């Protein structure tokens, strides 16, 4: 028996091409891993399955997070600073994100393709949008690396967003494993965008490991609670020489605007728009908020008056000419 996507299948003796065609997979839209190694598409015909083999067949579905705007990431230039996550995706959301929010980057999760008729999210995404595959589902660095390799095989280019979570209740990123995965994938030539808990030491390690940006969370993913980690994100913006993309937890346009005023390079959001009363209108509101925040940052914020003046003696009276 062969283990295919977790199920025992009587496929020993067949080559991959035969199995995939018999079961209705569309070869262009999938990637196949055999015993943890990716099988190139042109080798499917000569790859014969044997008893005990473990096969993973994957394609893209919605999942992960969002962002977009005009900045340089991995050598590519974007005019939008909003990135759309696709954890809660629908045709309407993607259309709204692209048309009303101007999203140029959409994240995607790599998932097992068990149903041959699985609708492919790629069909909904316009060609001019950059796909950012994420590694959601990975529980450690090794799994994230496997998923990243599969996503590259799926034709998504070298971009990868690392998401490693070992807690299904809060879905908080595992910073330690994320550093390891970043180092491995950067060495393989990936443009690595790690999702992380905003910790200065970890951000430095990610930078040294070759990350193209850091993606600190604002509050727990999907919570719409806003900039709970504001002070720490500000520290990353001040200290890390990489774009800081605020990811997860942004629930309102005002919060996106505030993060941009602080100097964030971009905002990633999904739930805030997906769960809004009017999805296209909310997508437009996010677009305006992110642009306003960016303009405010570039303009330089005005002063904040401290309450009460200090009526002390002049400090510089002692100076002689």
């Amino acid at each position: 028996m062969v283990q295919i996507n977790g199920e025992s299948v009587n496929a020993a003796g067949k080559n991959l091409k035969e199995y995939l065609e018999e079961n209705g997979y569309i070869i262009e839209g999938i990637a196949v891993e055999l015993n943890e190694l990716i099988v190139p598409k042109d080798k499917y015909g000569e790859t014969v399955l044997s008893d005990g083999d473990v096969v993973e067949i994957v394609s893209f579905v919605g999942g992960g997070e969002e962002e977009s705007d005009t900045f340089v990431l991995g050598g590519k230039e974007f005019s939008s600073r909003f990135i759309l996550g696709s954890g809660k995706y629908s045709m309407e959301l993607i259309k709204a994100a692209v048309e009303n929010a101007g999203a140029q980057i959409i994240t995607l999760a790599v998932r097992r393709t068990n149903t041959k008729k699985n609708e492919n999210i790629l069909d909904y995404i316009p060609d001019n949008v950059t796909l950012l595959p994420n590694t959601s589902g990975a529980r450690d660095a090794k799994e994230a690396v496997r998923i990243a390799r599969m996503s590259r095989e799926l034709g998504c280019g070298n971009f990868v967003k690392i998401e490693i979570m070992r807690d299904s209740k809060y879905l908080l990123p595992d910073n330690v494993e994320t550093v390891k995965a970043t180092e491995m994938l950067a060495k393989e030539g990936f443009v690595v965008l790690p999702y992380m808990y905003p910790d200065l030491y970890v951000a430095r390690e990610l930078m040294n490991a070759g990350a193209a940006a850091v993606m600190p969370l604002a509050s727990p993913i999907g919570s719409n609670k806003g900039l709970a980690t504001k002070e720490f994100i500000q520290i990353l913006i001040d200290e890390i020489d990489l774009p800081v993309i605020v990811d997860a937890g942004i629930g309102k346009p005002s919060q996106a605007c505030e993060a941009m005023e602080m100097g964030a390079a971009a905002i990633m959001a999904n739930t805030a728009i997906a769960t809004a009363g009017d999805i296209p209108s909310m997508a437009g509101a996010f677009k305006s908020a992110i642009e306003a925040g960016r303009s405010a940052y570039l303009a330089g914020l005005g002063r904040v008056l401290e309450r009460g003046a200090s009526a002390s003696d002049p400090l510089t009276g002692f100076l002689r000419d």
Partner: protein
Amino acid sequence: MAQNQFFVDSDKLSTAALEHKHLLESDPSARTNHMEYMPGMEKISSDIMDKVLDAVSTYNYEKYTKTDVKRALDSQTCSIEDFKALLSPAAMPFLEQMAQRAKSETSKHFGNTVYMFTPLYIANYCENYCIYCGFNCYNDINRKKLNAQEIEHEMKVIADSGIEEILLLTGESRKMSDVKYIGEACKMASKYFRNVGLEIYPVNSDEYKYLHECGADYVTVFQETYDSVKYETLHLMGHKRVFPYRFEAQERAIIGGMRGVAFSALLGLANFRKDALATALHAYYLQRKYPHVEYSLSCPRLRPIINNDKINPLDVHEKELCQVICAYRIFLPYIGITVSSREEKHFRDGIIKIAATKVSAGVSTGIGDHESKYEGWNDEDAGDEQFEISDARSFDEMYGDIAAEGLQPVLNDYVYV
């Protein structure tokens, strides 16, 4: 602009030595390439120098206006651009506001503490010809190198006065004061003091590692000026002539395991605004690369030396010095700032209320004369001083004066690990 006249001839020099001295002074082609490492000098891979020199070369301090200065004073965090504005002439009318802001930053990070230390010069032999320095090899001064017993005696005298932190200094002569000699002094200093710093000629990272193992834990190297063209005309001979090797000394010290490093330009040698910018950026970029290290800045001005009492800091008056120190504090709120006895009592008393966090006390820049200086007699046998000090207060006087200002004198808060 006014210039200092640095060249002084001694009638004790041989004809050949005088000829060589004059040749170095008058003919640039007689001098070595100051950007080229000499044999034995470790070359590390670092982009810090390029970053600093690039920033300085494009710094046009005349273009900043009072609007830029106000914006800098109003922003929550001070950007490099804000710092440039604070160092510009446009900031001078805002000196009091800068001092208020600096004071608030200082108290946020250091409370009301002021650290105290004393320097101990153990030798004044030098192989460099740095034309503004009293120790330069052509200057006719009494040379001396303390032996182990003399060093210990000096340390006892200083430790008895109450000092707990010491800064060991030598002239820059590897021949007369080799790394082993300095290491032995560090070992002895560790017995008498809780914190041992070094201000010696720059060495390689393995030598810093050795000195660290001997008990030293921070390294001060003054770049003197970050204007490499000017630098070349001031440091005519010797190891110190090599600009990049000196620039990278702090980074090598960090690689060698030192906990802290200190920087400085000697204000008055070249354009002080550009030098102040470079000094702060040197520390700033290293801090980003090595965030675990402690950083501090000194801000000395040129002083008269033996055989040349005319040397002065030119356009860096007290107000300009205060501007530089306040700008340092606002840009780098977490950094230590040392103000030495080159400055007078009234200035040091004033500046510790604004931005300085460390002052020296009971200072002699001579060799082997602490006992005589502390007890008020003249020691004929002592080695001559590097420069004239302006504040001769003893440890006890300094301690009392700091406390009288409502500040807290701190002798030491340090653990060697």
